[in-house]
């Protein structure tokens, strides 16, 4: 029997597989396809202090082996989450983690403090890397001082596991990760989407309503893997890897590059049952390779 448990500070995952924010709704959307108790965690849709309608349609463009989106953090706000959604999902037999976003530091702090009070939410993922909102979002995540400010401020009010989600749209992601670590992050997750765009040559118009959007899917995996490797070498806190993971083999590659756990995002759209399959596949890989504890794989790339 392979040991698949991953222990992070204040957060124990039964296996390294979580689902990425914005691709898995609140978990309920996938309950027909996945037994959520087979997952290490579910990271629910980006939540902001106030209600956000998000951006105009069209919000999606399909690209080779991937997609662009400019959803823009549509959500009904943290109070609605606490009153209406949390009671429905609090008893899921997995870690329910809330992705928290904002357009100024006060908003992040207020939303995080409210979620801190929820018994069954063991962690938040601080979203300082959404490329689709005009103010804030990625603005905090692309400079060391920005990420330090927001992480430090949230750290003061948030007492459980604080994961900070990093943007790949930076020159040196390791520096950004170090800034998050020094400001009190318990882990960093990466990568959020890569800024991209698509044009319809026939009409000469952009496909997305915001012109630019975030690229995700299998096509971003090599970039994500490289960044996870760079960050894992630089920081002491655990790294959560994501970006294009579509199979157990992909997940293993991220663990070998230095990720302690992984998230599955866009692949959920193609196979809604993929997350549980990856969790099983990781255990099978370990058995096949005589690995007794999945933690042995973390950073296990042989150069």
């Amino acid at each position, binding site marked *: 029997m392979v040991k698949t448990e991953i222990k992070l500070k204040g957060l124990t995952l039964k296996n390294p597989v979580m689902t990425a924010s914005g691709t*898995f709704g609140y978990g309920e959307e996938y309950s027909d*396809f996945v037994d959520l108790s087979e997952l290490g965690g579910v990271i629910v849709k980006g939540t902001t202090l106030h209600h956000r309608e*998000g951006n105009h349609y069209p919000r*999606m463009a399909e690209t080779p082996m991937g*997609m662009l*989106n400019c959803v823009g953090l*549509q959500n009904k706000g943290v109070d609605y989450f606490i009153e209406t959604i949390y009671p429905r999902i609090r008893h899921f037999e997995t870690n329910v983690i809330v992705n928290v976003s904002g357009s100024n530091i006060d908003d992040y702090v207020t939303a995080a403090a409210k979620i801190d009070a929820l018994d069954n939410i063991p962690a938040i993922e601080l979203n300082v890397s959404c490329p689709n909102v005009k103010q804030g979002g990625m603005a905090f995540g692309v400079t060391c001082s920005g990420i330090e400010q927001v992480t430090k401020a949230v750290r003061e009010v948030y007492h459980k596991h604080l994961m900070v989600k990093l943007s790949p749209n930076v020159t040196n992601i390791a520096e950004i990760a170090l800034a998050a670590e020094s400001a009190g992050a318990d882990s960093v997750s990466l990568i959020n989407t890569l800024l991209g765009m698509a044009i319809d040559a026939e009409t000469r118009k952009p496909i997305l309503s915001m012109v630019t959007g975030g690229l995700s899917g299998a096509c971003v995996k090599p970039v994500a893997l490289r960044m996870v490797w760079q960050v894992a070498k630089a920081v002491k806190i655990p790294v959560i890897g994501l970006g294009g993971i579509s199979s157990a083999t992909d997940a293993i590659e991220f663990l070998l590059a230095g990720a302690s756990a992984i998230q599955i995002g866009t692949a*959920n*759209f193609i196979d*809604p049952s993929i997350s549980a399959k990856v969790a099983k596949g990781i255990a099978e890989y370990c058995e096949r390779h005589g690995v007794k504890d999945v933690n042995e794989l973390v950073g296990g790339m042989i150069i």
Partner: protein
Amino acid sequence: MKQIIDFVVIDKQTFQRAALLKLKSSTPLPEIRGGQFANVRVDGCDKAYLRRPISIHDVDYQNNTIDLLIQEKHEGTKTLCALSVGANVNIVLPLGNGFTMPEKDDNVLLIGGGIGIAPLLYFAKTIQSNISCRDAIHRISFLLGGRTDSDLMLLDRFRSVGDVFITTNDGSLGEKGFVTDHSLWNTMKINKIYACGPMPMMKAVAKVAREKGIWCEVSLENQMACGIGACLCCVENTKEGNLCVCKEGPVFNIERLLW
């Protein structure tokens, strides 16, 4: 309950820019309502990363088959239309909310434009087999519109379920013009309209329905990624804010919409 099912193509009929696939399920089919859709994985096409949402044209629970009528639009749907008998197809279904069942003595007009005719056949069949409707004196009429006669496929199937009225833009079949130009609007008593087709057609139908005070539902087909209400890509801006067409729709009463 939504399921991921492996189907096999067991029969196929091709049209000018469309194909009708009969797909047999490897497991018993879940209950499917008229107007719900299937999210179809496209294998072997490097331009189609995401699934393609396709209306369910017909269902046969005895034989565990569904029919999909697919129009070739871009590479993904072209690949699906090129599938041969014997090919495997992975499908997530049934998705979205279907059309609302009519009341027992309603006169029902089902309006389809182009490939939008697809979901109307199965919905009409479910009206017929609905216990509360079956014994009632009610009439199902189809008003089907196309640019030209070759756009209008499988008319015999529709005629076996209800009266069929046709418009084509070039006058090659039925009355010339758009569906909203048809003479039946002056004569027929209609209680409920269900429409599926290109956006301009549905907007024109909604306008006529509002003017005449007729209850009307339309089925939208905004670009989707997940098909189950998770990604929030396919939103329609409604009176209730942005709603996912895949989960809150694809069928909407026109009173909920801003057009």
